[in-house]
């Protein structure tokens, strides 16, 4: 309750100040979002009153306000989970102000006190961010300084502790995070290179965490350092990026308390010109989980971020088996070609045809026992050895997908996709004893523009697999009156489920209204069990049935 009073007091104070004209020259901005769900029992899906547990309502909401006056900015965010929507961690429950800050920002220096988000390079050794749809937030509370002493040079320093739901920081429980990063854009920094075709950006980071050692068995490192170096080269239409990170020994729940050092490397090479883009990405990760509490697992308190390098699919069946990074070890590659078949050619037609081919594969790394008496990964030892190019035959994930997008005339256009996926469900979703899923997926997304602002969109999807839940078919119809209204009807049918009693229809009806930045959407229906992933983080979503309201706006 006190939070609401505080919120109202702030509000009234501001209104007052505004009325008196004291705030002239200043700006107030903010936004809020509420996602509410009302759950209904659904016997067919196995959701009865006891599954819901009497909790019929789930509500996630936030409101944030930023105040700017000259070079100063102050802001805070209020969050409420009462109770959290199904699939969010129960530890989210509660409400309060988890995020507030004051900052000063000039061309030379930027100083932030309070909560902040930051990323060094690709984030391998430090990335704090939030992803509302997943309930993910590892904001750092403390101090951040960004200093730009010369043109093309940027130096950053951070110090603080990370957010862990609503739990207050206590010095001897979770860790402290300290980090520094420097980046030099040589073309900017060195006058004679400014007009060069050859572009070079170099950067380096160092991060260390401190966590007291209260372990009764092991002698654990209280300070764990991680270091990364990166290079970005550009030459005409070519671009090369690489980052290498190393972490000293950091025994934790995540790596089963082994004392091995960790490393990760992420590289990409691309070529592009108008109408054509090609990119190849490679990565290797070995024992690189880096959290500010060694005793914790799950999607919390991550200091570093190991990006998965495969395509994030937009269509629901294509995204049924999403890959998530394996921080303990993986080696993968991705290759993508984007090509626009020119207008006027045979295949290009009047408007040109877009073509995209994407392939990615991730294998486990190969681990070799240190000696005859120590099994691989034994706690309290160095764990195993694995050379830089040691890759295992075990495929964790593979995805080949082809996409064509085509405009036929002013009223018809379509996107077609075919995907072939391999998904090691035992490793990636912990479903012991289950065979890897091998699936073919096809999608057709066709839009008919009825007139200037009215359109009808049809999305047909199919997934064919012998494993897990078997075959699926999906159909979605969406009528939109741009830019304001939409009405959607959809069904996903698990017609090939090996268990005949589980061949459910997951029907859904939805409509929404959008005006400027305000959007309201109401959805009624069933939601299949699945995984939602954004960036590198995924969240399990249980099957549910009911009503969902989503409201978002800003000011």
């Amino acid at each position, binding site marked *: 309750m006190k939070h609401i009073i505080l919120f109202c007091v702030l509000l009234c104070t501001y209104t007052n100040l505004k009325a008196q004209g004291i705030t002239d020259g200043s*700006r107030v901005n903010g936004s809020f*979002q509420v996602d509410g769900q009302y759950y209904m029992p659904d016997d067919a899906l196995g959701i009865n009153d006891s599954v819901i547990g009497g909790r019929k309502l789930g509500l996630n909401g936030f409101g944030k306000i930023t105040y700017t006056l000259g070079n100063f900015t102050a802001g805070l965010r209020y969050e409420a989970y009462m109770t959290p929507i199904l699939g969010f961690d129960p530890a989210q429950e509660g409400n309060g102000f988890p995020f507030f800050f004051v900052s000063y920002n000039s061309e030379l220096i930027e100083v932030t006190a309070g909560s902040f*988000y930051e990323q060094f390079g690709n984030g391998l050794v430090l990335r704090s961010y939030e992803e509302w749809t997943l309930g993910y937030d590892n904001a750092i509370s403390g101090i951040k300084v*960004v200093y730009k002493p010369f043109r093309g040079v940027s130096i950053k320093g951070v110090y603080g502790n990370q957010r862990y739901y609503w739990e207050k920081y206590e010095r001897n429980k979770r860790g402290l995070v300290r980090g520094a990063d420097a980046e030099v854009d040589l073309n900017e920094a060195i006058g004679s290179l400014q007009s060069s075709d050859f*572009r070079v950006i170099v950067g380096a980071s160092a991060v260390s965490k401190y966590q007291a050692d209260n372990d009764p068995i092991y002698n654990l490192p209280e300070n764990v350092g991680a270091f990364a170096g990166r290079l*970005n080269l*550009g030459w005409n239409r070519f671009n090369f990026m690489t980052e290498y990170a190393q972490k000293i020994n950091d025994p934790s729940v995540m790596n089963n308390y082994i004392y091995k050092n960790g490393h990760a490397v*992420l590289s990409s090479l691309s070529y592009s010109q108008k109408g054509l883009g090609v*990119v190849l990405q490679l990565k290797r990760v070995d024992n690189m989980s880096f959290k500010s509490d060694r005793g914790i697992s799950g999607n919390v308190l991550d200091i570093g971020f190991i990006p998965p390098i495969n395509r994030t699919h937009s269509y629901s069946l294509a995204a049924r088996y999403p890959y998530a990074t394996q921080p303990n070890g993986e080696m993968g590659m991705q290759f993508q070609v984007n090509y626009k078949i020119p207008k006027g050619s045979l295949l290009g037609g009047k408007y040109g045809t877009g073509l995209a081919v994407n392939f990615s594969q991730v294998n486990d790394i190969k681990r070799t026992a240190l000696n005859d008496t120590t099994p691989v990964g034994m706690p309290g030892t160095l764990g195993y050895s694995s050379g830089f190019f040691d890759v295992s035959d075990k495929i964790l994930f593979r995805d080949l997908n082809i996409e064509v997008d085509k405009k036929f005339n002013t009223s018809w256009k379509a996107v077609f996709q075919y995907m072939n996926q391999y998904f090691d469900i035992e490793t990636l979703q912990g479903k012991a004893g289950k065979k890897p899923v091998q699936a073919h997926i096809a999608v057709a997304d066709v839009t008919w523009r009825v007139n200037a602002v009215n359109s009808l969109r049809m999305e047909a999807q199919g997934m064919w697999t012998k494993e897990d839940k078997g075959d699926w078919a999906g159909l979605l119809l969406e009528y939109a009156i741009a830019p304001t209204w939409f009405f959607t009807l959809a069904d996903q049918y698990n017609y090939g489920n090996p268990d005949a009693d589980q061949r459910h229809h997951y029907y859904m009806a939805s409509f*929404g209204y959008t005006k400027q930045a305000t959007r309201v959407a109401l959805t009624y229906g069933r939601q299949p069990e699945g995984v939602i992933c954004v960036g590198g983080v995924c969240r399990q979503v249980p099957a549910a049935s009911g009503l969902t309201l989503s409201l978002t706006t800003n000011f």
Partner: protein
Amino acid sequence: MKKYLILLSLVVFVQLLQAQQSEIPTVTIKTLDGKNFITTEISNDGKPVILSFWALWCKPCQKELDAFNELYDEWQEETGVKIYAVSIDDSRSTSRVMPFVNGKGWDFEVLIDANSDLKRAMNVNMIPHTFLIDGNGKIVAQHTSYFEGAELELYEKVKKLAGKK
């Protein structure tokens, strides 16, 4: 009870601030080739600017930008409007953005907001989210979501700003 109070106070608050006109906040993001880009560099000699947030995983965003791209020559000729498309793809896919943009043949400026710093500063909760900025750098309109034809309404506003109507 609490929930309703929060909702109510937020709604009231929004009402109070509706008249406010904002500018683009100063945030450092990146260009496609990895250089730092300070948002104060977003400008168009007193002519309107469209700033649109998108990502590789967002189909409606790509449809919106495809629609812009198709009309961009015409729009530029008539009003001088300039489009910036800000990708919020994180380090998972930042290196795929440039090949994708070129593969699409998009002609506008594309920027990379890999840790969503600008997205947060501009209070973007969902994408696509598109801002219209006047010649003095003030945000005059914004819209979240995209459906076929929404670009026409946006362009009407652009024309008004450019004094063509």
